């Protein structure tokens, strides 16, 4: 396991690129809850320097995917794939909070990601 604990849990770092959820200030305690997401690279995909992120429960997989793509400075012709349990890919519209409830362990959701040159 790559539990590199030198990176503290980052907060709010994944927000600026997505203006879609400015409601965290006025939400209830439940809505403001965040979950820990651990991102693991697969194969030749670049490893993110910060692997552990604190993500709002209502955040979608697509939003997270966009964030990772920008973080890795991916090109337009590259596609990012995300895997849960290394057994399936969550729908882009799925909320990470739901994934955490179903597949979280040890207080975090582990997601593997893989960069692919082509689709098809």
């Amino acid at each position, binding site marked *: 396991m790559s539990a590199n604990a030198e990176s503290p849990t980052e907060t709010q770092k994944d927000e600026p690129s997505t203006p879609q959820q400015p409601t965290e200030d006025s939400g209830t305690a439940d809505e403001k809850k965040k979950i820990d997401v651990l991102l693991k690279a697969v194969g030749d995909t670049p490893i993110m320097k910060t692997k552990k992120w604190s993500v709002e429960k209502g955040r979608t997989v697509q939003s997270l995917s966009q964030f990772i793509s920008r973080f890795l400075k991916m090109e337009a012709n590259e596609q990012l794939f995300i895997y849960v349990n290394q057994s*399936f890919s969550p729908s882009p519209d799925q909320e990470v909070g739901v994934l955490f409830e179903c597949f979280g362990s040890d207080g975090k959701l582990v997601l593997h990601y893989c960069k692919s040159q082509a689709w*098809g």
Partner: protein
Amino acid sequence: MAGRPTPGCLSDLEMESEEPTEVEMSSCFLDEETFCQCCQLLLQHSHSLCDGWSWEQVKGSEGYLRKTALGTGRTRCILDQQGNSSDQHQERTFSLSFHNDEDDEDDGAVCCIQEESSSSSVVQYEYHILYSCSYQTPVLYFRASTLEGRSLCLEEVWDSVHPNYRQRLQHRPWDTITQQEHPLLGQSFFVLHPCRTEEFMMPVLKAALEEHRQVNYIVTWLSVVGPVVGLDVPLSYCTQVPEPPHTPSSSPQPPSSSPQPPSSSPQPPSSSPQPPSSSPQPPSSSPQPPSSSPQPPSSSPQPPALGTKPG
């Protein structure tokens, strides 16, 4: 000859034991029997969810999974609701559709020729999951039409791809979704190209191999490709649908002579049985037995035989 150096047999053997790429490569592909088994297992869960999948058999040999669903898409509307230019538009439309009727084609081309606005609308989708012998992977074919029955044209389908994948698709659309003849029905369908399937399947299959567990290839594959074209795959598929019985590639096992009747929720014996429900449940963490000692077929529930049509 005495002076001839001996070939490096030992190093070759060492390389073979270090890199079982042959095993990995074979496990990245799907044989037709496993395809059918995975489909049947998916089908059973679909029945319990009333998710709409059905198995269609063609001439008693090849079959495919089929589902229709309503979704959203971006379609182009003819601007015939404007004031002054409506007549002209209507005339043009009429002549074009008349022309197309003559050719006996779907009038998908009507909307693509004119200048029109693109908007989000309800689209009727029909999805088919077929097995491709040449790629040894499943392939997703689909049709899309408006509620009025007009087929979407290729550009509209490209515009309807989920935003998560749209940028990549727009980069090389012809590599991703095109129109092809349905291999079994002979009708025009849109198809999501399968040539790179192994690229996104590889991480899952490799992990499964290393952890000595199986995956349901179809469920995993569908979870990746489905959302691209608006096909929703509920999370419970990923937790409730079991894997097909393991068949070692080196020694193919004969099919079970006594197929068990299909149950509503088949579960492998090693995992705790969970009733199928619409709310996704966390998967059991009990590991599958190592692949070197496969379970005898009689101890694990068999999917229904190919000939029987479920439900």
